[in-house]
């Protein structure tokens, strides 16, 4: 299982970088940045964090459905290029725009593919082909730069669950959802898509208040209920070491040899 830290909303660069450095030092997989009143554009914060901290993955949770998805795709491409291919784009529908989630996800991914494209959806038509835009018009649009990742990692979140799963994309579930219901949704998607669902990130938000055994138990239960493969753990930066030493080793393999956990308990600092 891969583990991202979701640090408390930072107000400035130093706090943001400190969280990223703690994650990097602890050997966790990365950081998730969500919008906050102080830093309302997570993709901008992701670019700044990428400049300060090498190697870690950076997930940015953005709203889709209100503005133009092309703009989201361009920003994601630039951040992925600047970071050397470390971006995970997490797209949640804007409130009341759940109906547009699938169309937005399709347009973002189409635009990020390295080929000229033409899309005519219920909400967005690209290129629009407006008669007023008559000089040197394009019949197909081409978004540049291309991301570094051959297929940029895109997850759905919030009200985009069915849209994401139906497209074989990853999905970040909230911490308090019903795990059996989530398992049923993933099972339906697997039945519908078959091998096209292989590798899709089955992610959930988690909380960590210092109780490592409780988080381990929850992640193991998540794996049993819906095949959880990613966890986004809300915790302060100082918790990165505890998560990495006391949680991470226990959720990588299906089981651990008898006695190993007792050995860790006896030899590792609390």
């Amino acid at each position, binding site marked *: 299982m891969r583990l991202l830290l979701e640090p408390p909303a930072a*107000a*400035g*660069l130093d706090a*943001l*970088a400190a969280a990223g450095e703690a994650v990097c030092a602890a050997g966790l997989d990365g950081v998730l940045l969500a*919008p906050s*009143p*102080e*830093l*309302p*554009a997570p*993709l*901008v*914060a992701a*670019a*700044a*964090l*990428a*400049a*300060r901290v090498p190697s870690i993955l950076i997930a940015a949770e953005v709203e889709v459905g*209100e*503005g*133009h998805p*092309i*703009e989201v795709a*361009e*920003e994601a*491409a*630039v*951040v992925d*290029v*600047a*970071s*050397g*291919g470390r971006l995970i784009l997490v797209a949640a529908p804007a409130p009341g725009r759940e109906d547009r989630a699938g169309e937005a996800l399709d347009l973002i991914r189409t635009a990020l593919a390295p080929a000229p494209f033409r899309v005519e959806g219920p909400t*967005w*038509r*690209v*290129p*629009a*082909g*407006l008669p*007023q*835009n*008559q*000089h*040197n*018009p*394009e019949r197909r*649009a*081409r*978004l*540049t*730069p*291309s991301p*570094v990742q051959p297929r940029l990692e895109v997850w759905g979140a919030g009200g985009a669950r069915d849209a994401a799963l139906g497209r074989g994309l990853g999905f970040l579930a909230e911490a308090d959802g019903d795990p059996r219901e989530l398992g049923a949704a993933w099972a339906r998607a697997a039945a519908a898509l078959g091998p096209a669902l292989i590798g899709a990130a089955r992610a959930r938000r988690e909380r960590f208040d210092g109780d490592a055994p409780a988080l381990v138990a929850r992640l193991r239960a998540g794996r049993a209920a819906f095949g959880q493969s990613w966890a986004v753990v809300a915790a302060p930066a100082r918790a990165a070491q505890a998560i990495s030493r006391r949680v991470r080793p226990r959720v990588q393999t299906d089981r651990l040899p008898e006695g190993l956990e007792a050995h860790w308990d006896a030899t590792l600092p609390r």
Partner: protein
Amino acid sequence: MQSTAAAPANPTELYERFADDAALAERLGFRSIWSAEHRAWYDGWCPALVHAQAFAAARTERLRFGHAILLVPQHDPLRLARALATLDRLSGGRVDLGAGMGHRDAEFDMLGLRRDRRGRLMDAALDALSAVWAGEHGDAPPLQRPGPPVWIGGMAPQAIARAASRGHGLMLPQTLRPPELRTIVEAYRSQARRPGTVGALRDVWVAADGRRAEAFRRAAEAHYREEAGSWWVLKGQVGFSQPEQLARQLARVSDTQVVGPPERVAEQLNDLYAAGAEFLVLRANFDFVERAELREQLELLAEGVVPLLDPAAARAA
């Protein structure tokens, strides 16, 4: 951030270079670094400047980041306001918004926007930025109050009027000759109750050696020929199909470039100050410029040209 046919480059390396260039500019005492936006072009031209600037701002401490220019009508205003506020906060208040219109139909059309509505879109966006930064959408305010300074790009009467009526600064294009610049500055100052700063762009190349100066002019001509030939609409047609018009435009670009030994460069830049420009944005960075050459140019400008400049002349103009 361009990987052109003439000068290909690794895309990630381009963003690393931008951060390195920013750090060098800061060490050399430059006040700010300015970047231009375009989208949907083969060379990967950066369509999300604020994000690129966040990357470089995270590796600098004092340098300011401006746009010359950002195509404001092509952005969702709420999204742009939040991006700029985030950069402003992360950079410790080091953002200048250079707001321009954009001119390529293909860019507007990709986003479902009419180019002929760009003036209205600009005004609506500028209003929206103020509203978001004032907290009307629940955001914390940017570090700079009431928001990052705004510079209106362009030289059209509407741009002058917009900057004057809103109390924003001006960022004038690089092809204006000093007398033309003076006329515009006078118009702006006569319209503005509280005029902002008048900035002007200029291509510069410090070269005491005539052959190096000529090499720059030739490479720059090819660079602008590609851009103007592909994008500019001359007499209703794309540039390459209008060779005479294109040649005239390129001659103007070349005529207004400031190329030569440091004393000569300083003299020509002082002519701009004397004509009323208070702030100069100097461009020596092009796709064809090698890293070492750019470093040398920045050093030559900082050490050989800047000490000879007389920006106080602008106030007297």
